């Protein structure tokens, strides 16, 4: 009863094409933004910022980026870690090689570098499909691992090949405290989310989805696969590259190639799928779920007052994590976003079952 469209008539196509056509949704989003920008900064402590919000937000950005590629365009990629690495290392190189360049611009340039790499590695997708492509993207993963540890130029010849950076400073404003970092990341996420939403509801988004659902038919309609696929690779790797730069500069502060290894790629894919393929909210839900679940499981015994060795706890954590993933997929293969949607549909019907 609380979630009703009844009585809300759309009188123009413009209104119907709004992102949130239903009034309740608008209020809902406004409340979330308020919570994000005002309430949380007032309440949260340092641990919550550093260990929860900042990583979740950055991962949400990466997950949204990957979702554009996997969920919307249907090209499965296991190379997100690599794109993040490219974003991070490129941003670093722009920063040290062009003095006084605004770090935010460096992040964007990092993203653009990832775009270039993404487009190049997207080319095989014109021929290779499905899991063949997924596995083939691992080539990029291993290649970047190798490149950034073997070609010293990228790491500015630091002897060990790991990089350390100072807090980001924009126009004299230093993002050094957790709360500032949080707000920086959140702002970036909001902007990118809007961009993503705009893209997927427009011509490009439809071209991606058409390619995903049936690429032959899409081509017959006049959507060039080369354009659709490569643009998806480009935009997706841009998002992921920026996320990588943020991850490196804002979250880690210091990193080595291992920080962007294949496990990261898998986690991001997890987020996308658990969250919901082809859903922007899904990317966020997935990022929160996959990042927080292990922390939660890890702390659970302590909260429950169960005394267990850390090894036992983390083995259990693995088991429960795996089991939950299977459970969620079995309940709803289309992810958390779909569960959310069905809940809404049920709310709409409530109190009637159908």
């Amino acid at each position, binding site marked *: 009863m609380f979630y009703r469209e009844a009585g809300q008539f759309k009188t123009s196509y413009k209104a119907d094409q709004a992102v949130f056509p239903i009034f309740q949704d608008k209020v809902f989003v406004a409340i979330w933004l308020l919570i994000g920008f005002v309430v949380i900064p007032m309440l949260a402590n*340092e641990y919550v910022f550093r260990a929860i919000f900042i990583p979740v937000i950055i991962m949400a950005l990466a997950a949204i980026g990957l979702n554009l590629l996997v969920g919307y365009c249907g090209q499965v990629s296991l190379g997100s870690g690599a794109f993040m690495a490219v974003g991070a290392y490129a941003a670093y190189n722009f920063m040290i090689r062009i003095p006084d360049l605004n770090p935010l611009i460096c992040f964007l340039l990092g993203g653009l570098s990832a775009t270039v790499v993404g487009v190049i590695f997207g080319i095989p997708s014109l021929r290779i499909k499905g899991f063949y492509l997924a596995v083939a993207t691992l080539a990029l993963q291993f290649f970047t691992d190798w490149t950034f540890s073997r070609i010293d130029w990228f790491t500015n010849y630091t002897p060990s090949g790991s990089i350390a950076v100072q807090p980001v400073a924009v126009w004299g404003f230093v993002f050094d405290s957790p709360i500032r970092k949080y707000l920086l990341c959140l702002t970036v996420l909001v902007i990118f989310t809007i961009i993503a939403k705009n893209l997927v509801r427009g011509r490009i988004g439809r071209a991606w989805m058409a390619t995903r659902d049936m690429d032959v038919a899409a081509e017959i309609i006049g959507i060039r696969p080369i354009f659709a696929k490569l643009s998806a690779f480009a935009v997706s790797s841009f998002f992921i590259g920026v996320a990588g730069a943020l991850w490196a500069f804002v*979250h880690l*502060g210091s990193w080595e190639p291992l920080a962007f290894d294949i496990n990261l790629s898998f986690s991001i894919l997890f987020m996308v799928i658990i969250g919901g393929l082809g859903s922007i909210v899904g990317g966020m839900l997935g990022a929160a779920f996959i990042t927080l679940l292990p922390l939660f499981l890890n702390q659970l015994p302590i909260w429950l007052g169960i005394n*267990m060795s850390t090894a036992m706890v983390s083995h259990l954590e693995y088991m429960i994590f795996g089991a939950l993933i299977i459970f969620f997929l079995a309940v709803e293969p289309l992810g958390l976003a779909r569960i959310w949607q069905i809940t809404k549909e049920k709310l709409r019907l409530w109190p009637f079952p159908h």
Partner: protein
Amino acid sequence: GQDEGESNSNNPPEATKSASNAEGIIVDVSDDNAQFIPVLSYRTGPYAPNGMPVANGFTEYLKVINARDGGINGVKISFEECETGYATARSIECYERLKNKGPTGAAVFNPMSTGATFAITEKAPVDKIPLITMGYGRSESRNGGVFPWNFPIYGTYWTAADVLITHLGNINGGLDNLKGKKIALVYHDSPFGKEPIPLLEKRASMHDFELSKLPVTHPGVEQKSTWIKIRKEQPDYVLLWGWGVMNSTAIKEATGVRYPRDQIYGIWWAGAEPDVRPAAADAVGYQAVSMISSGQAQVHKDILSYLYDAGLGSGEREGVGEVLYNVGLLNAALVVESIRKAQSKYGEKPLTGEQVRWGIENLNITEQNIQDLGLAGYMYPVNLSCSDHEGKRAARLHRWNGESWEYSTDWISGDDAVLQPMVKSASDTYAKEAGLDTTACDS
């Protein structure tokens, strides 16, 4: 199983008993009169076989201090383990989670991985918590002027590499005789593995030996081509800078290509039981540099009687005194002694990270202290200062005899005339990039 935790599965009655005995040994983190020490450990994932004994040694030393001495000068120690899985992002989360626990926050962090060390190095100065990176981390962080919060006590990779070259010099009748020799570095392709390269290159140009670098990709399960190259080039020595499964695989492959084991020398992270046991007899004769070897000193006997006999051991009895166990134990001993030192200035109560930092920087462990610690014969005196956060430039080699490790040399010193300038230039570069002041120690 090894990981069944606090209770010893072999004798359940004792396990029940332990609940009461645990009092005073395992102190709750919320105890306001206890010094809190965070423990980052990895008991899962590809490096678990190495991580478990280190964590056991570390925590059991803390426990035995509580059990035997009633804490450090009466201040009990509380600790909490956080599983990192050897992953940097998880380590950061652990760091954030643990840094404010206990009445005074974390006394000191031992990141237990080179990657995590790099990441936490940036955060520690802000939180004012010192880092001890015993035998790992960045070698130039020994310069306390630039890295006031980092303490690579007891040996950096550069020291280890220098000790190895010195040893090769010794057995060849002088460093000059290395001229024309071929030395191959088989290394884990990560910052950890690359850390010794600058030093080895410098040494190579000094003594005119040929250094070939052979990277091995993580996790190191496939090394055929590396060892085919070695069979072809037949280097005089192979330095093995590996970690985890890479080490035992290397030794097996060496057997495969019939490269003599006694010409292979490992870093201390490639010189423990898990590294040689899977290769069993093939590994006989293999040597590695070591901070501390296997064996049981007085303190182990205390651990066995205070903890294991009371059913409070974390692992199996046989594990007490293995190489990595001892590494963890030694690491904990250094932490405890630093706190003790700091108490001498700030009083016998739980101290803050900043206060503990002073204790570490002024740490001075003499032969007498080593006796008192129950580590006689296992430890080398350490003396830290503002400009020297390492405190020691020597290590011993030990050799695997098929059953156990035994020392094969006496303490060998690295050459500070070589090391110091490298530390200086590397840390200066770092300071310049980060815009740091380098004069902290000059006064």
